[in-house]
């Protein structure tokens, strides 16, 4: 019996929608689990990534902790995959990129009338936000990109089955969506 492929997953500046899409492969999960076992992932609650074959990273990079986690994944995963629009382009969080970070924080935590005026959070445990939101490939080398918000279950399935079979993943146009 061959050893199972180790897969780690994480969501950085994402919404876990890509993870939901992975679960959306439905009963194919059973087939997948015959071939892979999960390392660090919201599905296992393992907190740190060990040596893995595949790292699936959802979400872009918006704070210092995201950078730390992404580098841990890059260091441990033979194949690193940017999963979803945010990981590939920065996505919706990157829509703040043309604004000043200070102005954003001021607007949300001080000016906006519908929220408690607690001031800009400054707890030392909070990771520092980055000046701009970045797609993964601007921080580490990325081996594969899966666009889509989220990439469909069929796209994720095609990617994983191609990779597990030792093929270079390839997609028909209907599996390549940016929305």
């Amino acid at each position, binding site marked *: 019996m061959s050893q199972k492929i180790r897969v780690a997953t994480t969501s950085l500046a994402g919404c876990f929608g890509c993870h939901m899409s992975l679960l959306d492969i439905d009963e194919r999960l059973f087939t997948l689990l015959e071939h892979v076992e999960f390392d660090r992932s919201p599905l296992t609650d393992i907190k740190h990534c060990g040596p893995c074959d595949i790292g699936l990273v959802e979400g872009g990079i918006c704070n210092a902790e995201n950078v730390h986690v992404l580098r841990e994944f890059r260091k441990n995963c033979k194949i690193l995959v940017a999963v979803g629009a945010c990981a590939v382009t920065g996505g919706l969080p990157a829509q703040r990129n043309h604004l000043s970070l200070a102005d954003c924080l001021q607007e949300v935590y001080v000016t906006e009338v519908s929220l408690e005026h607690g001031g800009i959070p400054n707890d030392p445990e909070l990771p520092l936000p980055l000046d701009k939101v970045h797609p993964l490939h601007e921080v580490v080398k990325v081996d594969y990109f899966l666009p889509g918000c989220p990439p469909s279950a069929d796209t994720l399935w095609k990617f994983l089955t191609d990779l597990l079979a030792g093929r270079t993943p390839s997609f028909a146009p209907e599996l390549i969506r*940016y929305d």
Partner: protein
Amino acid sequence: MTDTFQLDGEDVSFAPGQSVLQAALAAGRYIPHLCYHPEFKPHGSCKVCTVKANGGFGNRYAASCTLPAQAGLNVESETEEMNELRRTLVQMLFAEGNHFCPSCEKSGNCTLQALGSDLGVMTAGFRHFYPDRPVDASHPEFLLDFNRCILCELCVRASCEVDNKCVFALSGRGLDKHLIVNAASGKLADTDVALGDKAVDVCPVGVILKKRVGFAVPIGQRRYDQRPISAQALDDAPRQAAVGGCAACEGTS
């Protein structure tokens, strides 16, 4: 008898005055293109339709929308080399603007997006510019979201050639090139653009948007949800029977 040229090793007949792209589309052969529109004078600016042509002048890369079809021309289009160049052009367009497809109401009907999908573009690859381009929502009927402008000049051409209004123009050079409107205030509300203008229907991306109709068509029923742009473009093109310029033949196949 019509003359022919070779496209990827097969004969394509053409009528005098046709470009390589026009003749190819009329013959049911797709060459990826972006700023070309069958109803307007070719512009040749996006270069997505670039082909490798050999016509006795040696190998030359040329935009097929402005390359006149000539007898004996040998054209390479559907090759990995040309498609890789096209992918790079599309990637640069994505990286240069703010193309957030998930929140764009043009998504599913967008030529740039459909082209990327059909060419197999998985990422913009380059460092994103994230430019600061405020929207112009001044007009009661239309919204201008400059973040998505790819400078194809289709609205410019439509407004001048069809609407006779010249509402739109490009200004600036190089990286500073941008879309402007013809009003002293710089606001769309102060132009004579109106519902029914060709210019407001021709935008291939999500810059010129009609207000109050966004997201009306559900996902799955949008233009490029069912069939890739390579199939749609052939449906839209005047077919071989229309070589003489018979607009009534358009849409028949």
